[in-house]
């Protein structure tokens, strides 16, 4: 009875409320941008970037993807149920969307790979050759041989094209 006076019916409810309030605040402060559709995740490495977006219900045939230098543009439409009188719930968002995204580097527009699976778009973009950092080698005979060896060993799975351009230098 005493406990009830202090904590109400559930002594943990206040704790839970605080916890959810905290996580809500944390979430709210994390992204500084306004929520745009589609939300995108980006994964990057030295040679490229992979972008994913959730686009449920979007017809991949009618999705317009454009890449220019270091900008990506996505354009499409989310379909919705026809307006019917007996609609009980409408939570799915509808309508046209346009999203422009700045990329961390210039991309090769010829090497864009797009996959659409189960409503998730996955774009693989390659960093353009001109944009890649160049290793400058010191022109002494002994040293250049050494660095060549070191270069070829760590990443064997790299594309031959990258290796080719490097060797040309």
């Amino acid at each position: 009875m005493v406990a009830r006076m202090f904590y109400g019916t559930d002594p943990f409810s206040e704790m839970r409320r605080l916890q959810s309030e905290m996580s809500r605040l944390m979430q709210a402060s994390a992204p500084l941008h306004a929520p745009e559709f589609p939300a995108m995740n980006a994964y990057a490495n030295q040679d490229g970037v992979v972008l994913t977006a959730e686009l449920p219900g979007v017809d991949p045939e009618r999705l317009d993807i454009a890449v220019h230098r270091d900008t990506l543009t996505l354009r499409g439409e989310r379909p919705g149920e026809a307006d019917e009188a007996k609609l009980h719930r409408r939570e799915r968002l509808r309508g046209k969307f346009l999203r422009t995204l700045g990329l961390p580097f210039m991309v090769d527009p010829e090497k864009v790979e797009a996959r659409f699976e189960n409503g998730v778009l996955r774009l693989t973009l390659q960093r353009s050759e001109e944009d890649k950092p160049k290793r400058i080698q010191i022109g002494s005979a002994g040293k250049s041989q050494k660095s060549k060896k070191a270069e070829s060993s760590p990443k064997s799975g790299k594309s031959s094209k990258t290796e080719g351009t490097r060797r040309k230098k």
Partner: protein
Amino acid sequence: MAEKSKREAEQSGTPADGQSEGKIPAESDGGERTRERPVFRPRVDILENDKGLVLTADLPGVDPDNLEVELEKRVLTIRGRVDEEVPEGFGVLYKEYEIGDFERRFTLSGDFDPENVEADLENGVLRLTIPTAPEREAKRIDVKSR
């Protein structure tokens, strides 16, 4: 006729805020999960026609093999597992959305025919057609007056 079946009472919690972008976290009434990853409530549209209910749910990333739809008594459960991983050899540059599974439960008010539920998953959108139970008509008892 079935005025009651129009109402779809959610089994748990507050109605989803359907107007803003972003994913809605699932209610945790089902206990703790064994997989350590977020669970979201799929956004749904529900409409009723003379044949029954049509439920459309956004389940991006759910493969048909990883989708579970269950109708037991009046409880409809939708569960979708998402197997999306960080691409190999890549690091996260930024994340605007979380990846997680989907789960949602509805209590249907009205009788539906669990044997004839049709489910179709295309481009990450589930379309469920739940026909009204045929027994409902048969159950009516006419009282004869002499």
